[in-house]
């Protein structure tokens, strides 16, 4: 069972070019129905039918959780990726019909927090836009620190400052760089929760700085924006189903399993949530573990794989599916 088994039919109501690398897409229910309410930090899975290829990518909802008429996501174009963002940028236009999953939240606010401290890098801003709308509505104190490479690439920076005023501080690499994390994290009231979403280096820096200062792990939240990497084609044997499947260079193993009609759990499709963890029956070769879920021992054992992001190179891979 997974959220993407029950898709919601939508129509693309608007496509906005936010800057040279980011486009915003808005969706309405195909019959004009209300879309499900959600909580800030939730994502949806967008199904892309690109000729004979079916891709499913997860994108954070950036629209207000209180807006049921439409959803909005932002997609950063990645020309080196599997083609999902390229498809969104090049093929998707207003009026197109698509399918999306119900919202899933793996990056929710801890509603007990005395204060929400949000740190965003680049396109990692999107979940925070919804979270800030939620925190404002709840009257919960929050603060956003948003860093981008250049002012030209800093999507929504101006509008967020207009909307949330002094709660938002912006930083650009071409104008002095990001926040001083040690200073920022040393001066937060007890009961603050920190949330970070952005490039890997930024997430690691926030987690390390906070941990070194003595923040408990339960107060540190992060969301990796990981899309399945491309690679060489490979084939896999599914032991229970008794079939061999082929995984294309720009297809994820998870997508190939789904395409074969074999049931598999999943949620985030980005190697973070652990739902698709699958037992390896035989592995004669090397698994490229691209996930954030398995620990080093599990990886070394070659007994587990996260099909949403991981790939294989070698003679034979047999999974317990």
């Amino acid at each position, binding site marked *: 069972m997974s959220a993407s088994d029950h898709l919601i039919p939508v129509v693309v109501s608007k496509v906005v070019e936010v800057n040279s690398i980011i486009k915003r897409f808005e969706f309405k229910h195909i019959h004009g129905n209300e879309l499900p309410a959600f909580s800030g930090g939730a994502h949806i899975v967008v199904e892309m039918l690109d000729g004979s290829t079916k891709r499913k990518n997860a994108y954070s909802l950036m629209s207000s959780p209180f807006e049921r008429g439409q959803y909005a996501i932002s997609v950063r174009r990645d020309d080196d990726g599997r083609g999902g963002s390229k498809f969104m940028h090049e093929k998707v236009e207003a009026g197109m019909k698509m399918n999306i999953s119900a919202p899933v939240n793996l990056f929710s606010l801890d509603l007990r927090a005395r204060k929400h401290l949000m740190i965003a890098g680049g396109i990692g801003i999107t979940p925070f836009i919804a979270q800030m709308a939620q925190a404002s509505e709840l009257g919960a104190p929050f603060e956003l620190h948003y860093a981008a490479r250049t002012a030209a690439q800093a999507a929504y920076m101006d509008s967020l400052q207009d909307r949330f005023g002094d709660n938002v501080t912006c930083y650009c690499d071409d104008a002095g760089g990001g926040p001083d994390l040690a200073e920022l994290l040393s001066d937060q*009231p*007890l*009961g603050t929760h920190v949330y970070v979403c952005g490039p890997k280096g930024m997430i690691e820096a926030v987690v390390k700085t906070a941990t070194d*200062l003595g923040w*408990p792990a339960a107060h540190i939240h992060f969301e990796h924006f990981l899309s399945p990497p491309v690679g060489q084609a490979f084939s896999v044997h599914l032991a229970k189903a008794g079939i061999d499947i082929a995984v294309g260079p720009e297809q994820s193993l998870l997508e190939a399993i789904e395409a074969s009609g074999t049931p598999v759990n999943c949620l985030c499709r980005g190697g973070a949530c652990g739902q698709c963890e699958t037992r390896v029956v035989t592995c004669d070769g090397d698994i490229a573990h691209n996930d954030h879920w398995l620990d080093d021992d599990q990886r070394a054992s070659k007994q587990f794989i996260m099909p949403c992001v991981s790939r294989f190179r070698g003679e034979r891979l047999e999974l317990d599916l």
Partner: protein
Amino acid sequence: MSESLIEESILSRPTYGTLAIAPGLAHYFVADASGAECVIRVAQAAPKGFMEKVHILYVPTPGENALITALYALGAKRFEHFPTIDDAIARLGDWLADAKMGSQLYLAGTEGLIGQAVAKGEECGLDHTAVQCEHRGSLARRVQCVHCKTMIEKVTTQPVKCPSCDLLLLVRDHYSRRLAAFQGVCINAEDPTEEVEIREVFK
């Protein structure tokens, strides 16, 4: 040294470790007489400058002064002692109200003290998973009578008679962090005429 000997039990029953310095901007210690030695042990092994970030709350045994002197001599930034756990916990609340993230909480002594300090920490926004606890001294339990909700302190017997509703309570291992108490449930509710022997078990 009377190290804690708590038997393995159900998953709601707290377990305790050994205090060790964790990274932090400020370090809060709360101890009673049985836990004072743990604070002294940590302080003596601490790196230079550590005590400047340390705040100690202490609940002595009535009439005892030696440990007060010893704790005072550690040279903490703040040191206060109170005659009761309740008073010390109230002061902990005052201190934590002004505290910042990066504060560490260390608790040492009896379960009643540890439990109430953990609950106060959570109330002030400090996640219980981040609190270090070292159990020392008596295994006497703080028990909530599930029937009349009375909190019974320093329970050493199994069962125990509720001083408020007079029911004879089985002291379970089921523990509430929010209440900082074990659960007491009537042991002979089905047949109140049943005689039950009262034994001293939480020493």
